């Protein structure tokens, strides 16, 4: 109660200040009058009496202050005073304020932007009901299950697949069924697999969509309602149920314009009719970070969609087909450990019964919290993001050091003012508080501008990340509450960091000398000024050293990127457009019709204007995909299986890709259809497996007698397949007889100009066939180098900002020094110092600092450079050239920053300088 009364009377004196003030005045006045009257009774005159009371009882004005200060609201009031005073001080120096706010905005903005991305990828909660109750199942065993088919879709931490230890998040349908049947520990279980790239027709132009196969209780378990219509339910998963699909909210908006009539409509997915029964809630944008879907269909539709997972028509029943990711919601009151024990038992019984593993293999299930267990894009984006976060943290330190330097010289300029206030009775604590308030004001102004920068920057970054992905990706990088709290936190931290030292330095001044000195310091012999210079110098050295870190890191990554781009992949990457088609998905094509379509399309495309050559292959080189197979090779002493990279190709492939033929012949149109099977291999194949013996006429193939045997009919030059960094591996090029194809169109000029023409040609052949993944080879390579490009761009940008900040810091310090030493410079000039001497004097001061910073920075960089190692190519983490280059750059720019103050020093007129005070 008394706390309440305290607060309410505090509020009263805050908001009805005048009345409370008047009352206290009247009360104290009455007190004085009564005391004085008492005195006057003893015969003293009024003035004397009032004086006597003051002496005895204390000055009433002071009394009032004492009463004020004893109230808690006084603290708030002085804070508010400080803020108003601070704003006035900052408005009086708009130039200073602008520089400081901008510097901080850069530092805080860059940090906020990168943190928004980190937040989106690492921290944001899964947008479903009570996500903390969700767990993802991961199994492990001491050995690899016997002859299982395994698919995973990047939801979980990568699969461990050694002979002696295996673990993965993919499970078979029978295991899912048993866990559902036996486990009482979950209130719901959701299984899913995908995305599958599905051909969708029946809604405008045919297109390819990302669809996920989900169990019937997927939406109920996650607690995701329908925005329109209904979601998939358990009845939809039953065999023989009508084929249904649920659209994601975003896809509904883009592809159906958000029209309510979409629900109930029938579309064709991979040739099979599906009825759209609903649209999922708008909030449900993802389960695993970055993985977004266009639509969901029941698990039991695998066969209808002709998906290979689980091996064809009986997919969902196969015991040795591991393809489902399973997420469970823990029932109320059930601990993770309890559920884990129960699930492990079910899993062990089932895999033992299915003869996949023995009890001795110790098969078991671990339950991972879904928030951390479902990694999604985290697996590939976390490392570059953390490196960039480190770079922006350094940038923030630089801006702090910079602002601290500026504050320091301003504190020096304000020494007289502060001395006056100290001598008038302000306590040092009070003045420190005032100065800190000003720093915090600046920090928050910087943060406000910084958040604007971040808002723009984070979205630009998010679209850069999404543009470089293979499938649709959802990334919500808009700053949310977590991000705003983060920014406010670093604003407070920076405010204290750059404000405290100058504030303490400012108030530690001795009053007497400070009052006596002129507005600008007297001479270099002034010990205090010297110490302040030392602090300022330290800040400049720190800035230069930190800039070295960022610039050297940026330099190494940029050089690696240049090296990677210079790598010769063995074929001509310029002016090639590629796009994918997959006619067999629709169900209307058999192998023969597919071959005929490819032949016709190849023919028609080759007549288009500007087209030099056309071919196709099962995948494109340098696109992230890789197909390998274990084969036995005839004529080898060692009969064991060897791993060969494989690619099926159409006629003219080597001509279209410009891969030189070394020996034998290339694959002809006849080879596409007829037996015997023939193949073209590369030089590494011959060198590594055949010890350079004559390869033509030799055969290779799988170990099973039923597998096809390929006769080597030609040899081509080596090419890289999936990775620019790795040396070329043995590749076998086989004739493409079926399946999806990537057409490669080599043009004489801009290959993107061919896109509309190619679309028309395909539509003329079959209007229901969508094309997908339309990109030039150069774009594909850029996409592979995503991490390097992200870091090179950002680090380069931040390096330049760091350089500019360090220069401003150096310039500020030297300008202040020149101003401070005006008198000394005047004396020197009067005594005959030449302009060259003065220039040397200033430049020496500046360049010593820069050189010290560079040396420290290089030492520091050598300590942390190993973190960059995985991103580098063709350059050592300790590359001397880069470090020398960065050092030279800083020296040159530092020299330029010295020049302006030095010129000012040279122009000092000795007469003016000596009369300065």
């Amino acid at each position, binding site marked *: *109660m*008394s706390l309440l*009364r*305290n607060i309410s*009377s505090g509020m009263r004196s805050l908001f009805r200040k005048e009345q409370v003030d008047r*009352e*206290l005045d*009247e*009360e*104290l006045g*009455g*007190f004085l*009058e*009564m*005391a004085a*009257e*008492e005195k006057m009774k003893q015969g003293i005159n009024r003035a004397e009496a009032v004086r006597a009371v003051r*002496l*005895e*009882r*204390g000055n*009433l004005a*002071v*009394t009032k202050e*004492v*009463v004020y200060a*004893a*109230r808690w609201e006084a603290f708030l009031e002085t804070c508010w005073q400080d803020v108003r005073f601070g704003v006035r001080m900052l408005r009086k120096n708009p130039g200073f304020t602008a520089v400081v706010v901008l510097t901080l905005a850069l530092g805080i903005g860059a940090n906020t932007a990168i943190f928004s991305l980190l937040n989106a990828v690492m921290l944001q909660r899964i947008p479903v009901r009570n996500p903390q109750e969700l767990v993802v199942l991961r199994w492990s065993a001491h050995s690899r299950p016997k002859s299982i088919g395994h698919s995973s879709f990047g939801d979980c931490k990568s699969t461990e697949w050694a002979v002696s230890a295996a673990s993965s998040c993919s499970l078979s349908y029978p295991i899912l069924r048993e866990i559902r049947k036996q486990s009482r520990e979950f209130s719901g279980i959701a299984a899913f697999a995908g995305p599958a790239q599905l051909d969708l027709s029946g809604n405008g132009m045919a297109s390819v969509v990302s669809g996920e196969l989900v169990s019937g209780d997927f939406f109920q378990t996650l607690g995701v309602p329908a925005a329109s219509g209904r979601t998939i339910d358990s009845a939809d998963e039953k065999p023989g149920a009508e084929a249904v699909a649920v659209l994601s909210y975003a896809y509904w908006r883009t592809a159906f314009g958000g029209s309510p009539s979409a629900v109930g409509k029938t579309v064709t997915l991979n040739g099979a009719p599906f009825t759209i029964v609903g649209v999922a809630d708008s909030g449900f944008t993802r389960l695993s970070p970055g993985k977004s879907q266009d639509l969901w269909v029941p698990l039991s539709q695998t066969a209808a969609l002709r998906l290979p997972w689980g091996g064809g028509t009986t997919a969902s029943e196969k015991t040795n087909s591991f393809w489902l990711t399973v997420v469970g919601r823990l029932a109320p009151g059930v601990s993770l450990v309890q559920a884990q024990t129960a699930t492990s038992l079910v899993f062990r019984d089932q895999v033992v019964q299915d003869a996949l593993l023995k009890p001795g293999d110790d098969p078991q299930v671990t339950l991972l919290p879904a928030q951390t267990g479902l990694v999604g894009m985290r697996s590939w984006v976390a490392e570059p993001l953390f490196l960039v976060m480190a770079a922006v943290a350094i940038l923030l330190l630089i801006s702090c050091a910079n602002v601290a330097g500026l504050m320091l010289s301003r504190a020096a300029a304000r020494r007289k003012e502060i001395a006056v206030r100290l001598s008038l009775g302000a306590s040092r604590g009070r003045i420190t508080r005032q100065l800190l308030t000003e720093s915090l004001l600046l920090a928050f102004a910087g943060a406000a501008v910084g958040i604007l920068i971040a808002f723009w920057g984070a979205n630009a970054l998010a679209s850069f990340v999404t543009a470089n992905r293979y499938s649709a990706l959802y990334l919500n990088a808009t700053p949310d509450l977590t991000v705003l709290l983060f920014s406010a936190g670093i604003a407070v931290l920076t405010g204290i960091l750059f404000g405290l030292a100058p504030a303490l330095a400012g108030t530690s001044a001795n009053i007497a000398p400070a009052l006596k000195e002129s507005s600008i310091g007297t001479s270099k012999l002034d010990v205090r000024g010297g110490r302040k210079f030392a602090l300022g110098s330290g800040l400049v050295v720190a800035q230069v050293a930190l800039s070295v870190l960022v610039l050297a890191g940026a330099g190494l990554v940029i050089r690696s990127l240049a090296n990677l781009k210079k790598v010769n992949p063995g074929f001509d990457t310029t002016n090639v457009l590629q796009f994918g088609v997959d006619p067999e998905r629709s169900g209307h094509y058999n192998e023969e019709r597919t071959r005929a379509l490819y032949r016709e399309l190849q023919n028609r495309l080759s007549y288009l204007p500007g087209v030099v050559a056309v071919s196709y292959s099962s995948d494109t080189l340098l696109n992230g995909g890789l197909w390998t197979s274990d084969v036995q090779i005839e004529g080898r002493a060692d009969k064991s299986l060897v791993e060969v990279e494989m690619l099926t190709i159409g006629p003219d492939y080597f001509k279209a890709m410009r891969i030189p033929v070394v020996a034998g012949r290339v694959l002809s149109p006849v080879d596409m259809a007829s037996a015997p099977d023939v193949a073209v291999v590369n030089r590494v194949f011959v060198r590594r497996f055949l010890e350079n013996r004559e390869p033509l006429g030799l055969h290779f193939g799988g170990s099973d007698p039923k597998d096809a045997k390929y006769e080597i009919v030609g040899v081509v030059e080596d090419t890289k397949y999936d990775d620019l960094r790795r040396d070329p591996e043995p590749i076998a090029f086989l004739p493409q007889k079926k399946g999806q194809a990537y057409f490669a169109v080599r043009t004489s000029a801009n290959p993107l100009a061919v896109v509309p023409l190619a679309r028309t040609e395909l539509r003329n052949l079959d209007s229901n066939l969508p094309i997908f993944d339309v990109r030039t080879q150069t774009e594909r390579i850029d996409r592979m180098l995503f991490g390097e490009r992200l870091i090179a761009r950002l680090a380069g940008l931040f390096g330049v900002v760091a350089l500019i900040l360090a220069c401003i810091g150096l310039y500020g310090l030297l300008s202040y020094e020149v101003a401070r030493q005006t008198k000394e410079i005047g004396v020197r000039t009067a005594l005959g110092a030449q302009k060259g001497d003065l220039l040397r004097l200033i430049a020496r001061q500046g360049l010593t600092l820069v050189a010290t910073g560079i040396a420290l920075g290089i030492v520091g960089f050598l300590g942390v450079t190993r973190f960059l190692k995985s991103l580098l190519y063709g350059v050592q983490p300790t590359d001397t050239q880069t470090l020398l280059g960065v050092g030279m750059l800083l020296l040159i720019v530092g020299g330029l920053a010295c020049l302006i103050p030095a010129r000012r020093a040279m122009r000092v007129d000795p007469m003016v300088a000596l009369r300065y005070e």
Partner: protein
Amino acid sequence: MSEQASDLVQGTLDMLILKTLALEPMHGYGVAVRIEQMSDGIFRVNAGSLFVAFERLQRAGTIKGEWKTTENSRRAKYYSLTERGRKRLESETREWMKQVAAIARILEAS
């Protein structure tokens, strides 16, 4: 100027004010004079300490203030004890007596 007021044991001013007001409602100057009189001039109360104490006691809900007219027809704020204040005075007096007796025993022991 002798600053006897500073000789007041920390925290006792509140108790003395409460005691003074327990006799009758009084304005600030009256309280100061009364404390001086009752202590035979040993304690002289500084205006600053006095009004800070009034503020503190009001906020703690032990006294309340009311504007009235004095016998010299001057407006003054009269403070009076609340029920809470009366209880607090009792408990503080008891505590104080106990402590004084204890200190006295220690000082007399030799």
